[in-house]
């Protein structure tokens, strides 16, 4: 099976691409199919075209949500094909699962999965253009070189542009073998290439779905039951319909939609609705009950994830034992662009404009609801004003479809900030029972135990999908503890609540890394070891992670003397194929913790764009710090309390630490970059707080810590 294919004229037209006489190749960025684990039939889902003018277009199936994926994937193709980057456009591939396969963006997979196939597609195009040029110039192929969109015959000084060669190249058979460039030959990969989406993002022209306008479009908001799982009893819409600009009020499966000439009128109309909800059983849940429930579940024997060597209880005589509990709260995703979608449902067809991390799932579910063939549902992928995992769930797109269907008009459904925060699917709260046995004489760790008690994302989203088997997703980062400890025992106790849960930037690594790394610091203190030293010792078998610890420690100036109230902390974690250590400097004064500086050391294998890596480290640190310092979703009466930026306030400018990224130069396997920078930040900060104050923070957020106000240096 070839992994690069020539694209037929028919498929080519579906891409909306230009003229005949273009060379078009397809390749596949394989979506991981976790459900079946089967290798999908070869259906290309990324494409490149060279037209008669020499313009190159690359279509990629991934969503751009700030991670720079359009640029990164475009660069992979362009470098191998020796395209002139100035003439390369990168576009979103059409959402068409029958022709182009499933699409999803998440798990920091884009560059990892595109790394091979996209370069191979680019190299294939380059070879075909070279072969066409050899025929055109009447010289041997071996005397030609491809360079920035042209084929050059150095001996004669003649050259010919890709545009003039495209048609002839398209008529050639696919080469059986193509060689990828050697590292020294790369021109774009590894360089800080400017992002293709930047210009549109500084002049207001970048189109998010919230910016889409259609003829005859109405603006809608939905009143939903504040309590999870609650249902509608009755409603009265007379006052709402009397609000100036309100056009319609319709029932949809998730609540009552108010449609109006403007978003503002719709919001005011919604305020005028009188609604009686049946709040249902979840109304009896609040924070205290959730905490109680997790604690009650804790003694249960969990499903074993890893069991090696001596247990904590069974460790040798003379061992010292330490047990600690860590916990983290539910968190909202809260992207800057609230959830929204535009839908236009007509007889026999449907169009949706959306920023989605899973457009094909949305398309399939919309088709099912409307009783349409998937091909009759068109999904237009827009820029995402932040995703963080939330936009992988199709609920908000489906709501827009329902509203459009019920109202018989094109509709823009906007979630207000309150809606977005109170009807999210949340990062699971969790409880971690940590235990260790250490030998005080040899100062070695003998055994480690981690029992995770938390809701299962997979079981809650797809009941029955996990049952009493191990939820591998939940234990990621706990099970694969990288430390060389003779005994390691990890188990998982499922503790589902009525609060809906979903993946949140770095999924369960954000909880498990916090517990691992904060607890390891406690062990270090018990053994009177330096936190960097203990990691370096225990990471002998994990050289890539070890190296990041060294670099981060060196970068922060580990061991230097500090002003009173300052402390340094370190933490590391491997996730999504990459290795990251953060070293943080904090300053603690009465009632405030300030993170002054973070050195982020990362090994993600070969670097596609160092500037994007630095940006993603800034981003992960800010997202993770916002959560660690004060992020918390609280439940009262089965509903979310927080509803505004004041209640759930991301890091502001004045709180931004200096973040310095250090990249390990590496030829190892390529890893992701959107998520791996997040897990180590919370533990690095609590470890630094300990260094500054001698106080351990074992539950997040830090601001919720008892006695926080009284802390002094």
């Amino acid at each position, binding site marked *: 099976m070839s992994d690069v294919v020539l694209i037929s004229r028919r498929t080519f037209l579906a891409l909306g691409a230009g003229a005949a006489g273009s060379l078009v190749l397809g390749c596949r960025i394989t979506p991981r199919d976790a459900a079946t684990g089967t290798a999908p039939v070869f259906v290309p889902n990324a494409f490149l075209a060279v037209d008669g003018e020499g313009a190159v277009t690359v279509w990629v199936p991934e969503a751009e*949500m*700030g*991670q*720079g994926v359009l640029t990164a994937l475009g660069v992979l193709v362009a470098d191998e094909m020796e395209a002139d980057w100035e003439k390369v456009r990168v576009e979103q591939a059409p959402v068409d699962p029958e022709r182009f396969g499933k699409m999803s963006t998440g798990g920091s997979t884009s560059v990892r999965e595109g790394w091979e196939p996209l370069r191979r597609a680019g190299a294939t195009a380059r070879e075909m253009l070279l072969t066409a040029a050899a025929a055109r110039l009447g010289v041997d192929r071996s005397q030609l070189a491809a360079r920035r969109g042209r084929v050059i015959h150095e001996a004669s000084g003649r050259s010919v542009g890709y545009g003039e060669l495209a048609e002839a190249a398209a008529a050639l058979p696919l080469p059986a073998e193509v060689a990828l460039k050697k590292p020294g030959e790369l021109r774009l990969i590894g360089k*800080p290439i*400017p*992002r293709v*989406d*930047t*210009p*549109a*993002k*500084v*002049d*207001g*022209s*970048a*189109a998010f779905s*919230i*910016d889409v*306008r259609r003829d005859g479009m109405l*603006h809608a908001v939905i009143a939903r039951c504040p309590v999870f799982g609650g249902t509608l009893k009755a409603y009265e819409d007379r006052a709402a319909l009397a609000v*100036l600009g309100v056009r319609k009020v319709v029932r949809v499966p998730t609540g009552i939609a108010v449609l109006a000439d*403007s*978003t*503002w*009128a719709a*919001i005011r109309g919604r305020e005028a609705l009188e609604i009686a909800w049946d709040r249902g059983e979840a109304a009896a849940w609040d924070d205290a009950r959730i905490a109680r429930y997790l604690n009650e579940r804790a003694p249960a024997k969990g499903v074993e994830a890893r069991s090696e060597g001596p247990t904590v209880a069974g460790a040798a005589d003379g061992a010292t034992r330490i047990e600690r509990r860590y916990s983290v709260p539910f968190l909202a995703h*809260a*992207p*800057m*662009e*609230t959830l929204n979608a535009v839908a236009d449902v007509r007889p026999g067809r449907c169009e949706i404009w959306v920023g989605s991390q899973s457009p094909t799932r949305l398309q399939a579910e919309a088709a099912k609801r409307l009783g349409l063939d998937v091909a009759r549902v068109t999904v237009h992928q827009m*820029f*995402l*004003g*932040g995703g963080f995992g939330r936009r992988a769930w199709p609920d908000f797109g489906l709501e827009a479809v329902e509203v459009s269907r019920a109202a018989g008009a094109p509709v823009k459904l*906007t979630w*207000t*900030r309150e809606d977005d925060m109170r009807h999210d699917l949340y990062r699971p709260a969790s409880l971690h029972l940590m235990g260790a046995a250490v030998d005080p004489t040899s100062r070695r760790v003998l055994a480690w135990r981690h029992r995770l008690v938390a809701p299962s994302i997979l079981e809650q989203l797809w009941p029955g999908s996990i049952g009493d088997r191990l939820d591998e997703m939940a234990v990621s980062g706990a099970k694969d503890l990288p430390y060389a400890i003779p005994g390691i025992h990890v188990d998982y106790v499922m503790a589902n609540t009525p609060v809906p849960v979903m993946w949140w930037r770095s999924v369960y690594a954000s909880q498990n890394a916090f517990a691992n790394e904060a607890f390891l610091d406690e062990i270090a203190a018990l053994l009177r070891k330096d936190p960097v030293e203990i990691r370096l010792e225990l990471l002998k078998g994990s050289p890539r992670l070890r190296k990041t610890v060294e670099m981060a420690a060196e970068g922060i100036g580990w061991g230097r003397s500090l002003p009173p109230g300052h402390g340094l902390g370190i933490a590391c974690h491997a996730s999504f194929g990459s290795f990251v250590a953060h070293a943080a400097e904090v300053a603690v004064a009465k009632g405030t913790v300030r993170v002054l500086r973070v050195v982020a050391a990362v090994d993600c294998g070969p670097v596609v764009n160092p*500037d994007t890596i630095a*940006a993603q480290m*800034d*981003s*992960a*640190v*800010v*997202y993770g710090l*916002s959560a660690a310092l004060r992020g918390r979703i609280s439940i009262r009466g089965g509903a979310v309390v927080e509803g*505004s*930026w*004041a209640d759930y306030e*991301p*890091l*502001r*400018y*004045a709180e*931004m630490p*200096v*973040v310095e990224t250090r990249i390990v130069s590496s030829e190892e396997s390529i890893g992701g970059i959107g998520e791996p920078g997040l897990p180590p930040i919370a533990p690095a900060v609590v470890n630094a707080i300990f260094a500054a104050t001698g106080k351990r923070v074992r539950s997040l957020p830090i601001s919720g810590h008892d006695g926080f106000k009284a802390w002094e240096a």
Partner: protein
Amino acid sequence: MAKPIELVVNGERRRIDVEPEMPLLWVLRDVLGLTGTKYSCGIAECGACTVLLDGEEIRSCATPVSEAAGHEITTIEGLAHTHFHTLQEAWIAEEVPQCGYCQPGQLLAAAALLARNPHPDDAEIVEHMSGILCRCGTYQRIRRAIRRAAGTAKGAAS
């Protein structure tokens, strides 16, 4: 309905027929189709909706359109035609945006800062810009871009 309201948006005179208390944000986005100005909270907490009113930064989500009548409004669509286009160039040079959603508000807030203080130091930048949230964490680059536009950059690595 009250009588039509006259606005001057990016140098163009616009007459609109809306309720005087409709926030300027929704007039810009839903009535005039200037969607570069963003909604993110609607209650003056995040700055995504920042525009200039006679050169002063305001939160358009919390400004009734009647208050804007007769004043010069500058939105992101009009920024390129002011002498603050240098900010946009600096934003590109420093590769500031990630998802990009907060950036129109950031740019207009930065323009208001430079209008008042053409050579702000870091502390002044931080203080002025703290009202505009960025969930993607682009703050460090925003500071560098403002310094670059103000001609006070310490060099690309500062």
